[in-house]
């Protein structure tokens, strides 16, 4: 059993949890992920490592309440435990040698983008972060991003906070202003990553995206997380989760991701009313 030592609501649908998992904390690196099961009957879900503390032996995860499992997870309180927590899995993000980087985060994807931005900042790189949300209420990790960025732009779809517009608008403006980046790291909804990649391709800037398709074992066995990169089948769990943004077949991923939409919807409706939270 893995104990929840801290729980914080970042916004009405996004929760942060710090979990006691010394083995995972010892080896975790930004960009890697874990797989957890809430209880003995639970499904396995992958979540990216948002932060870790090697000394305390804890790993921080940030999740959006979207389906039955995340509802059940969100229902647990500090001091309670989850059944399984395995990792670190996947390849860490490659940050070696990067001097100036634009980190783009979208929605709950910011939870994954933040540790990468932090690592880049710690190794002395100039970090320009652009984080986008639907509206003011959904903004997460603002302080954290500001602390590790040389420049931080917050975008909202409806203009209720920061600048109105999409992350691609801000990124485009930064590039047009003459910023030249060694790399753009984009983490967020697939559609966002697709359009960031299309934009950076015009300027020929290397772009890395983090994929999180459906996953079961997370060790390269089941093949559920497969995607096409540069015409070849890759597994997000062992080959990724980071991939070259210009080579990923996004449309295929969008199609695959919709496979269980109906099921998730039903699962959400069937879950106990106590768990229910409106997903805006």
């Amino acid at each position, binding site marked *: 059993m893995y104990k929840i030592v801290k729980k914080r609501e970042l916004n009405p649908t996004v929760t942060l949890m710090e979990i006691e998992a010394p083995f995972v904390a010892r080896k975790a690196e930004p960009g890697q992920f874990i797989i957890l099961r809430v209880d003995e009957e639970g499904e396995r879900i992958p979540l990216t490592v948002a932060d870790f503390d090697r000394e305390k032996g804890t790993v921080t995860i940030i999740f959006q309440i979207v389906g039955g499992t995340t509802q059940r997870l969100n229902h647990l309180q500090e001091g309670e435990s989850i059944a399984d927590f*395995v990792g670190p899995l996947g390849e860490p993000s490659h940050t070696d040698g990067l001097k100036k980087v634009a980190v783009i985060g979208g929605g709950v994807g910011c939870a994954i983008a933040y540790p990468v931005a932090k690592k880049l900042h710690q190794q002395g790189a100039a970090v320009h972060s652009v984080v986008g949300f639907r509206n003011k209420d959904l903004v997460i990790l603002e302080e954290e991003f500001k602390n590790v960025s040389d420049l931080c732009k917050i975008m909202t779809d409806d203009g209720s906070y920061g600048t109105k517009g999409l992350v691609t608008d801000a990124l485009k403006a930064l590039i047009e202003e003459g910023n030249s980046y060694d790399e753009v790291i984009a983490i967020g909804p697939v559609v966002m990553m697709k359009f960031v990649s299309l934009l950076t391709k015009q300027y020929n800037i290397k772009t890395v995206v983090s994929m999180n398709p459906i996953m079961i074992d997370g060790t*390269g066995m089941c093949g559920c997380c497969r995607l096409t990169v540069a015409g070849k089948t890759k597994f997000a769990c062992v080959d990724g989760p980071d991939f070259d943004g210009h080579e990923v077949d996004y449309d295929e991923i969008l199609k695959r991701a919709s496979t269980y939409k109906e099921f998730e919807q039903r699962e959400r409706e069937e879950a106990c009313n106590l768990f229910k939270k409106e997903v805006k």
Partner: protein
Amino acid sequence: MPNMSLKKHEMPSQAPDVRNKNFEEVALGYSAETAMEEAQRCLNCKNKPCIGGCPVKIHIPDFIAKVAAGEFEQAYQIIQQTSSLPAVCGRVCPQETQCESKCVRGIKGEPVAIGRLERFVADWHNANSCDLPVKAAPNGHKVAVVGSGPAGLTCAGDLAKRGYDVTVFEALHLAGGVLVYGIPEFRLPKKIVRKEIENLSALGVKVETNMVIGRVLSIDELMGEYGFEAVFIGSGAGLPRFMNIPGEN
């Protein structure tokens, strides 16, 4: 006088119209009477070719003789000397290409139903015997087994019987490997696998789940700071292959 019937005793099984509406095991197993009758088909021949067909060299005619005599627990003890997973092997071993393919009764008619008898003995033991296996005296050596599938469990069982301090590391949340996620319930019920793993635990085997060796701990760490003197890697052949059909992704 041996039973000279040319045919094996039929395996009782769920009727097609019943089994197509549930996920329970299809084959139901021999009754004690059927097992004893089937056991009498063994000629206890001199050459014992069946043993040569068995990868773990179970003393097949000896255990079958005990079944024929109705001494089922003794039969189990004989199997258990060389096999760590009799209830599993009795169900999923390809006996038709192994022990049974060598049986002299198969030259004319069907071979002795060795697999069904093995299954019967293991099930009888699990249902009727509360004797825990006797733990071997510890020999002070620590061994790590990576992977809790059939290879890892067998290795762990054999080592534990010789007094080694064995820890099995499993990447998933449940021990059993392909026995639990690969073989379907109607062929090998999960509770049978669980029982076999409990039998190993009783021998002193420790199982650590959620441990992806290579990620969480390396072999060097296992053999260094954790003090394991040997590591058995039974990680399985888990990499999928695709057919490269357009649109499969």
